[in-house]
């Protein structure tokens, strides 16, 4: 019997002054993960040694990658993305240097992912302010990767055991949401979600719920018109095409009554409509998955957590889950299967 190759999962350390390195180290310290994946960390061995010492983690050994693409299959591989001159490590401090370093690692990992040197990417949190530059004019990982991999549309898809929720609009001011909610936009996101549920999660005929924008889903036009003018007509249209798309549901009642358990995916109109319930339901096993890309990318559902950086208080659950999920989705995509 030939040994099936374990997926090579690239993991960026994120901002080295945030909780990224800590959650990566803690997640991989459980070496059972090494039976499932070959982890390749993009960042620096120096940063990892710093946090390993600070956190008193003994059971964490790694090998430096000397030649591009040559990984030790049974150990944690570390690629030095940046040199020793990339600034001082001060946990909790936003710095230009750490922002720049996080970009260098992300860029390198993305390139190697494109070249097929690694199979999937897991990203630790970056600082949206300090990473911002002419080279990185994006709001976050998702926007960067969508452009880098030349995808026409991607979906921020939050996944957990009980709930998968995708967002029509992501990191934009609430005042701009209503204008961004167009028929075309919602349809494009629905298409990505439907395809992802089939291809990445193996669901043959996905059932999708669409939330309303306004309180009580507009209450028949009394509390806003977007539901009647845009969302409801497009849902009937989808139904006529034979798709299992339902709604628009009032967001509060939808989550209160546990209705979400009956659907394979939920499409939320804006960030907090999806993220507020997601974080309550998923708590520690929530993962952010970018659907619609030609490659697999996941990340934990938290930020840099400067306030607790270096204090050994960060939970690694979401990072561990992100690594598992990346491997799982990669396998789903590459299974020779019937209907996709």
């Amino acid at each position, binding site marked *: 019997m030939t040994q099936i190759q374990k997926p090579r999962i690239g993991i960026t350390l994120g901002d080295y002054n945030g909780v990224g390195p800590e959650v990566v180290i803690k997640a991989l310290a459980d070496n059972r993960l090494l039976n499932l994946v070959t982890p390749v960390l993009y960042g620096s061995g120096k940063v990892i040694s710093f946090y390993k010492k600070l956190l008193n983690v003994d059971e964490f050994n790694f090998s430096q990658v000397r030649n591009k693409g040559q990984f030790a299959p049974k150990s944690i591989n570390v690629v030095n993305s940046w040199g020793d001159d990339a600034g001082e490590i001060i946990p909790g401090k936003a710095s230009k240097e750490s922002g720049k370093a996080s970009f260098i690692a992300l860029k390198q990992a993305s390139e190697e992912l494109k070249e097929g040197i690694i199979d999937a990417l897991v990203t630790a949190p970056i600082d949206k302010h300090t990473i911002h530059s002419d080279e990185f004019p994006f709001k976050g990982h998702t926007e960067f990767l969508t452009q880098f991999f030349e995808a026409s549309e991607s979906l921020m898809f939050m996944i957990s055991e009980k709930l998968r929720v995708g967002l029509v609009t992501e990191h934009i001011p609430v005042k701009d949401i209503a204008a961004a909610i167009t028929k075309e936009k919602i349809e494009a996101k629905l298409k990505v979600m439907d395809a992802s549920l089939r291809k990445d999660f193996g669901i043959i005929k996905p059932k999708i719920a669409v939330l309303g924008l306004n309180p009580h889903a507009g209450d028949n036009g009394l509390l806003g018109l977007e539901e009647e003018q845009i969302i409801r007509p497009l849902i009937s249209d989808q139904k006529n095409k034979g798709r299992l798309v339902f709604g628009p549901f009032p*967001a509060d009642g939808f989550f209160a009554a546990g209705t979400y358990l009956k659907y394979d995916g939920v499409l939320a109109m804006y960030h907090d409509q999806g993220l507020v319930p997601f974080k*309550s339901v998923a708590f520690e096993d929530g993962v952010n998955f970018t659907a619609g890309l030609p490659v697999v990318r996941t990340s934990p559902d938290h930020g840099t957590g400067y306030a607790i950086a270096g204090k050994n208080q960060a939970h690694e659950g979401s990072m561990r889950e992100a690594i598992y999920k990346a491997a799982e989705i990669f396998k789903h995509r590459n299974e020779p299967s019937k209907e996709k």
Partner: protein
Amino acid sequence: MEKKRPILGISAGDPAGVGPEITAKALSLKEIYAVCKPLVVCDAKIIEQIIGICGLNLSVNAVTKPDEGKYEFGTVDVLDMHNIDEATFRFNEVSVMTGKASFEYVAKVIELAKSKMIDATITGPIHKEAIQKAGFHFAGHTEIYAALTNTKDYTMMLADGGFRVAHVSTHVSLLDAIKRVKKDRVLKVIQLANDALKKIDIKNPRIAVAGLNPHAGENGLFGKEEIDEILPAIEEAKKLNIHAEGPFPPDTIFPKMKGGQYDIVICMYHDQGHIPTKLLGFNYNHEKNTWEGLSGVNITLGLPIIRVSVDHGVAFDKGGKGEANPESMIQAIRYGARLAGSGDR
């Protein structure tokens, strides 16, 4: 020492829904009578009928004014409004008769509270369409209370145990909600929440204020309302010795309150507060594999009288079946008693 037992006027809600049933079931608990004197405002026949359907061991004492009540466990004191015709009454139907009746129950408890004949009001669920059909053009209870008590600055607070939210706006479109995120209004809601929590004996309420935008705007990267309106309101509240903090990213503040770090979260719009509260209030029974709830209550802050309501609707699929869960009504009565100074914990 004898505890004060405030008189609570309970408007039973639309008789065709679950309101009278959850009221009767709540009053079949002895501990309710230890903390208050409940007076149900309804048609006495309706209460008698539902007691029969549910097989409760209670008798009805029909009265015409609050001081005629016995307020003893085992007897339900009903201020009899005589406004339901048994011949035409049907459960689970929208009708002018029950819409009108339910409006009259609400108007009655407000009138009694304003004239200080009762100490607090508790409301059962009404049906918005039925109220409208009967000619009363209000979006809901809160608007009725505001109109009948002539109140301008009020806010809706939802509470489920120690999980509490108060809203800067509620029943308006998302676009209109954004326009209401103004410093003065945010400050007012912080103050109303602070006052209400002090009334239930939280000495120095810890108030978390949520942002409007994703990640609370990330210092202006995705929206400026946090910087222009919300933060100044928090600063102002601090000057008034109110323990207010924020603005916090909306998606991470609720788990913090659940963990006990705050007593209330001030929310910028309807769904921001309603989604997490209702999600929490609905409980899944793993043994029976069914959802049970809701356990939360709805409190209108800023009124000259006390008003607490159940946090669910008329449930026009469960009326008259004897299966409704009274948890929210029980909590509403307890909250009402606390706000009216019963000293109940």
